[in-house]
């Protein structure tokens, strides 16, 4: 067992050595530009990209012509939202999204508002799910796009994608999903789910960083997005720029491996995750954040009341995890995702996200449980809030000096 133990697989994943093996030749011998049509170097690169495009399409049930390679999911989100806004401006200018989306979607929507678009940010219920009635009530004749993420990056909650898509289509809007956390972890099928645009990336599924894709539906309806980068007209004119051939090859291989191993891997990880969760909930005043029925198999977000997340992470230095605490980020606010579930700031400050992955072992999970329990207990001994709780003092009855 190597220390520290990596349990932050929602942030990024280690690359699978099989992916690296597939990529290596495309850095040195097969270095051609996939757009070079007049020599063997270009043909070899193009062939590799074509093959990878099939592998990438297959994991979401798409066809290869519907895949636009990008630099990652952030670019794919930008291209989808800005591209639809520009392309469909004659039809309307209203976009619907949710408050728990990734910043790549939220900040792009803020940008759309600056351009004169209208955006509705749907709230979520306390389990992190959106309310389908609220979505339907928000739909207008002007609505051109509904963008709701597949699985949440902080709490792992899976939205009812099929139902959301049906509502969007009923009102003539397109449906887009940021599926960065879901693809490769759970079955995603653009046709079964009714998805028109889908963003995802390689580095969350044991592939390389710096490569992702936007799925753009070609049939029923044929969806188009306005390019956000001008240049050589690559990727059917929707995304110019020389293709990242080794990255794309790695992305393809990563998708292929996930296709093969997803089913058994999801089972294995959910057993480990459930074990971790059950063992940690033995601690008094610990709570799981988000819906536990509709959740990605490898994520557990747990708040340990009366201890502060960053302080806790420092005690758990042998574990690489993530916290909703404000102190872990540059901003002074704790996680907006947790706050939107209605969590009080102090509970949001006290949260830890455990993200398991392909290389997580049971031994590591057992060790993580021990370290976490020990750390929470240690910090509670130091915590004036824990002492007050134990004395039966209502913390809300104290006049705190906000600073």
């Amino acid at each position, binding site marked *: 067992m190597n220390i520290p133990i990596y349990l932050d697989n929602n942030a990024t994943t280690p690359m699978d050595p099989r992916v690296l093996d597939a990529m290596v030749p495309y850095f040195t011998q097969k270095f051609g530009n996939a757009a070079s049509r007049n020599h063997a170097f270009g043909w070899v690169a193009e062939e590799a990209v074509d093959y990878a495009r099939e592998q990438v399409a297959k994991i979401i049930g798409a066809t290869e012509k519907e895949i636009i390679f990008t630099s990652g999911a952030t670019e794919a989100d930008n291209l989808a939202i800005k591209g639809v806004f520009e392309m469909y401006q004659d039809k309307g200018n209203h976009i619907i999204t949710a408050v728990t989306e990734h910043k790549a979607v939220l900040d792009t929507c803020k940008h759309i508002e600056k351009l004169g678009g209208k955006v509705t940010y749907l709230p979520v219920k306390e389990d992190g799910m959106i309310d389908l009635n609220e979505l339907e009530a928000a739909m207008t004749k002007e609505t051109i796009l509904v963008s709701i993420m597949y699985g949440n990056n902080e709490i792992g909650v899976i939205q009812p994608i099929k139902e959301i898509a049906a509502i969007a289509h009923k009102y003539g809007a397109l449906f887009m999903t940021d599926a960065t956390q879901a693809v490769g972890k759970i079955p995603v099928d653009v046709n079964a789910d009714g998805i028109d645009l889908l963003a995802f990336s390689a580095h969350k599924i044991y592939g390389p960083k710096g490569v992702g894709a936007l799925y753009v539906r070609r049939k029923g309806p044929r969806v188009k997005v306005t390019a956000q980068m001008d240049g050589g007209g690559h990727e059917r004119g929707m995304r110019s720029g020389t293709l990242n051939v080794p990255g794309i090859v790695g992305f393809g291989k990563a998708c292929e491996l996930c296709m093969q191993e997803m089913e058994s891997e999801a089972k294995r990880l959910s057993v480990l995750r459930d074990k971790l969760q059950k063992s940690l909930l033995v601690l008094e005043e610990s709570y799981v954040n988000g819906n536990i029925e509709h959740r990605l198999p490898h994520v557990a977000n747990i708040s340990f009341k009366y201890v*502060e997340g960053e302080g806790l992470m420092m005690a758990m230095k042998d574990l690489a995890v993530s916290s909703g605490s404000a102190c872990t980020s540059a901003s002074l606010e*704790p996680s907006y995702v947790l706050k939107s579930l209605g969590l009080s*700031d102090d509970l949001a400050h006290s949260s830890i996200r455990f993200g398991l992955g392909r290389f997580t072992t049971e031994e590591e999970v057992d060790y993580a449980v021990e370290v976490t329990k020990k750390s929470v207990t240690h910090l509670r001994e130091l915590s004036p809030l824990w002492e007050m709780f134990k004395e039966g003092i209502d913390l809300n009855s104290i006049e705190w000096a*906000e600073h």
Partner: protein
Amino acid sequence: MAYSDKVIDHYTNPRNVGTLDKSSDKVGTGLVGAPECGDVMRLQIQVDDNNVITDAKFKTFGCGSAIASSSLATEWLKGKSIDDAMKIDNMDIVEELALPPVKIHCSVLAEDAIKAAINDYRVKNGLTPIVSEKTHH
């Protein structure tokens, strides 16, 4: 962000963790910060008849720097007169623990906790609280 060795030392082996009898006239208690902000410090001092701090205890809910700042504060307080304790400046804590700019608020909170504890003691003993001319916020 990397922590300094001194922060790690205080965090790993915090000095003077505990609780003094807050109902005693000889004990001053300062409770500062707010759970919503992710920092709460409780600092207590025991004062003898010569106005010397004979004991100091703390409990802190917060990040490693907040815990270290309050641990250090209790170390410094022990044996100091009330007057000298009033002179402890947050920048002394910043310097001693090599706190980065984003953690300066932890030292400010520790200074506030010291002053709040002293004033609690003063009020309990019929003295007026000292208003600090320093404004941090």
